């Protein structure tokens, strides 16, 4: 029998804190485990309230800033029928100490054992955290397999971007939520409370009722069928279970001004600043980008709401930095106004900096960056992604060379000395020439820099492409480790002696492990479990990552890298996520893939006619965009002639030499949010080839 608050009956839970505190003297960074953030709640556990433990499967410093988790934390705690606390993965030292002392996973706020909550809800942001998910379920004292959890054991839910291919975790998670969680968490709470007071309800019945909530996928109610070694379908086992689960999408971001009380941690975390989401969704249509595909349509917040959230947030938190977040913040209709209203606010003049993660590449963007970063012009980051115009047409990242060089020129001219460029390798149709185009581009950009400064650093950061579900490239076979390593080697050779250019790359082995999970079917669950049982937690961390464990797991499960990672999928093949929908028609994705192979880009549908990708029509939602015209000076498919993008560098290098400014505070403006894989997340995962030619030039930064 499953009942809300069943652990409340007859046992007023005592806090584990007296047993936890003695462990803290033995571990690194003990403040990870004390909570106490500004904005944290200590909710009262009582009958009639569904107790959620929101869990981020990585360490505190990485997980705390997660906006998705913070939004749901607030929404649940605002409800009368629910409450929420948080937990993060304890680092290995704390985990051993906890296991030795017999202390289970606990909530930060009231140090309550995880098993005493009604729901454990995991945020899935990256595939390589899956082994941590299993570890945390186990540390909570629960059986890791969902079919072995019985009685009133908490329900284990998961959401987040990776939930769009939940199959590798299907054996371990009771239910997944696809898409925006704002509304779904409330509906789930209501289902859990329904009849809780009166009738006895079995766990199976409960799962059946959950499956009736829009956007909720209960894997146990579906059977994965195979034809020999290939998947032939994932089909409902019961008639009242939907054949296809559609994602949730809130219609108006303006209705959800969360987080209203962003958590301010006592210790330093990543993205340690105020974050205000200016819009959700992106229709730039970059074909490799899962985030852009699964979060459609574009839903902007009004400029006045953004300004209010910034003002109230700065007042409340005391932060000296605010990030206006989205998948491409320079596309926000009110961007110039929003930025200048913060910069010119007498209350925060000179002491508050603005950062815009995920900047578009053009001079317009650099202009905004210049306004923001009046003094400390340390570094600027762009993501051209492809080394040649041809390649950028294939991936539909339509930055023409003119715009790219103009942006870099403008950045160096206005005082920046460090420019970082992100690239992907291993995309469809890629030739050696395209790969070497990255080196050529980096070299030219450094040359532009040298016209303005004696020492500059041009960092080219290269990541191997991992094809993601629900994208036009979902059919494409990923590069092997050797192929990726060879391409990186080519780039190293090509950049040997290039003054001011530094090459960094993501570990090709980690890229392949991510590929196993990214498009894996239900059988990959055994691989994840194998890696976890062999001690492979924290696989996002280079010091713990071990491809050997993944290979052994594949072998034990009778699977291969060839089949799960390297193989090109066929057009009509059943994909493991076909029964789940992000709103995108499969034939739209295939059509777009075909366009890619013909090196044809398509424009942004925010400002141009609809391509019928399926999202707006299928979900009955629409773009919410204040501006009816594309932002000024933009390239990337905003009304430009996308048949021409290639120009010589020489034509543009003398443009945009605005004077350098002085005064004010700033930080790295253009930081990149993790979009495709983990490569942007941890510098530790990147190996630095060092400053190529640094000894000759005397160093850069």
């Amino acid at each position, binding site marked *: 029998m499953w009942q809300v608050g069943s652990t409340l009956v007859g046992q007023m839970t005592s806090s584990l804190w007296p047993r936890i505190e003695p462990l803290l003297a033995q571990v690194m960074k003990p403040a990870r485990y004390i909570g106490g953030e500004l904005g944290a709640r200590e909710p009262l556990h009582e009958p009639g309230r569904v107790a959620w433990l929101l869990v981020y499967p990585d360490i505190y410093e990485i997980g705390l800033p997660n906006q998705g988790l913070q939004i749901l934390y607030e929404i649940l705690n605002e409800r009368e029928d629910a409450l929420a606390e948080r937990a993060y993965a304890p680092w290995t030292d704390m985990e051993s100490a906890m296991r030795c002392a017999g202390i289970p996973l606990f909530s930060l706020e009231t140090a309550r054992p995880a098993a005493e909550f009604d729901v454990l809800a995991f945020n899935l942001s990256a595939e390589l955290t899956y082994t941590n998910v299993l570890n945390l379920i186990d540390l909570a004292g629960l059986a890791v397999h969902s079919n072995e959890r019985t009685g009133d054991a908490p329900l284990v839910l998961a959401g987040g971007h990776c939930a769009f291919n939940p199959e590798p975790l299907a054996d371990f998670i009771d239910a997944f939520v696809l898409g925006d969680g704002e509304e779904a968490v409330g509906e789930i709470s209501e289902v859990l409370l329904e009849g809780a007071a009166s009738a006895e309800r079995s766990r199976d019945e409960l799962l059946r009722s959950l499956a009736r909530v829009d956007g909720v996928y209960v894997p146990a109610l579906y059977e994965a069928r195979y034809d020999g070694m290939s998947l032939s379908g994932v089909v409902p086992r019961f008639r009242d279970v939907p054949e296809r689960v559609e994602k949730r999408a809130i219609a108006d971001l303006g209705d959800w001004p969360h987080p209203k009380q962003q958590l301010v941690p006592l*210790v330093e975390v990543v993205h340690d600043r105020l974050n205000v989401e200016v819009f959700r969704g992106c229709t730039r249509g970059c074909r490799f980008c899962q985030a852009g595909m699964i979060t459609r349509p574009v839903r902007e917040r009004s400029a006045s709401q953004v300004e209010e959230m910034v003002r109230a947030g700065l007042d409340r938190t*005391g932060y000296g930095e605010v990030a206006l977040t989205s998948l491409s913040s320079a596309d926000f209709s009110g961007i110039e106004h929003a930025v200048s209203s913060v910069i010119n606010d007498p209350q925060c003049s000179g002491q508050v900096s603005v950062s815009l993660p995920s900047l578009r590449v053009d001079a317009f963007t650099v202009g905004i960056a210049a306004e923001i970063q009046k003094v*400390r012009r340390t570094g600027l980051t762009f993501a051209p992604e492809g080394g040649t115009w041809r390649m950028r047409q294939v991936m539909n990242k339509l930055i023409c060379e003119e715009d790219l060089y103009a942006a870099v020129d403008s950045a160096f001219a206005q005082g920046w000395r460090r420019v970082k460029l992100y690239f992907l390798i291993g995309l469809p149709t890629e030739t050696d020439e395209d790969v070497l185009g990255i080196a050529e581009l980096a070299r030219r950009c450094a040359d532009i820099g040298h016209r303005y400064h004696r020492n500059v650093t041009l960092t080219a950061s290269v990541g191997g492409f991992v094809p993601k579900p629900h994208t036009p490239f979902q059919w494409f076979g990923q590069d092997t480790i050797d192929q990726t390593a060879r391409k990186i080697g080519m780039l190293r050779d090509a950049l040997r002696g290039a003054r001011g250019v530094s090459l960094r790359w993501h570990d090709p082995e980690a890229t392949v492990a991510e590929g196993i999970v990214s498009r894996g079917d239900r059988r990959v669950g055994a691989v994840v479990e194998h890696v976890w049982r062999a001690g492979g937690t924290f696989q996002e961390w280079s010091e713990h990552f071990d491809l050997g464990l993944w290979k052994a797991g594949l072998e034990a499960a009778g699977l291969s890298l060839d089949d799960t990672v390297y193989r090109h999928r066929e057009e009509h093949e059943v994909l493991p996520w076909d029964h789940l929908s992000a709103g995108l028609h499969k034939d739209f994705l295939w059509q777009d893939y075909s366009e890619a192979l013909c090196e044809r880009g398509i424009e942004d549908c925010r400002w141009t006619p609809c391509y019928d990708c399926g999202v707006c029509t299928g979900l009955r939602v629409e773009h919410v965009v204040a501006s009816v015209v594309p932002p000024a000076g933009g390239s990337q498919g905003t009304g430009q002639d996308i048949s021409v993008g290639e120009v010589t560098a020489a034509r543009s290098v003398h443009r945009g030499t605005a004077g350098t400014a002085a005064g004010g505070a700033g930080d790295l403006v253009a930081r990149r949010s993790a979009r495709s894989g983990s490569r942007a997340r941890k510098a530790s995962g990147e190996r630095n080839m060092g400053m190529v030619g640094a000894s000759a030039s005397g160093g850069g930064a």
Partner: protein
Amino acid sequence: MIVRMRFGKLGKVRWTSHRDVARMWERALRRAKLPVAYTGGFSPRPQLSFGLALPTGCESVAEYLDVGLETEVEPALVAQRVGPLLPRGIGVVGAGQPEPGSASLQEEVTSCTWDISVMHTTQSELDGALSKVMGAASLPVLRERKGHVVSDDLRPSLFTLFAQHTDGEHGTRLVAEVGTRPRGVRPAELAELLGIELGLARRTCQWIERGGSKFEPLDVQPVVCAVAVERAS
């Protein structure tokens, strides 16, 4: 003007680091909208200057902070405005102004007093260890510094050490006044010297000894400390 504040760090928040505490103050002062002075130059920082670093895990009722302000504000008002904005466990005990022309806290403080609870040790065992340590001519410890192993003598920094027995749950306690020069002594190092297991350590005083007199960096009534302790627990 400089406003000097005395504050406590008690309870769970003791597990944060000295740098974390500095950031808590920066944010609280910004929220209080006090006219904090900023350093000039490439990356402006608020003008905050802390005294001795407090080791992570230790409590204190005697931490000090000097804040540079651009305009004159009554010190008590500064404390009143910023106090409620600090995290639970960080409590302002008092505020005032340092003597004009006095050196920084870091330069001025010559010693501090610790109140340390000692685990699994009887008072007589502790007394024995104390007389041995205080009777020693030198107490060399090896420490790695910048890749080199160096030997420090801790004996000159041990001013007074005595055991105190209470009937409360804390049992035996060690009260120690240790100097800051040539180097300070952490509670963990004291425990190592004495061969005892360290319980909760709380700094109770910082001292400035100058021209034959000994005083605290700020004059505050001890009764306020008790209030701060209460607020944290």
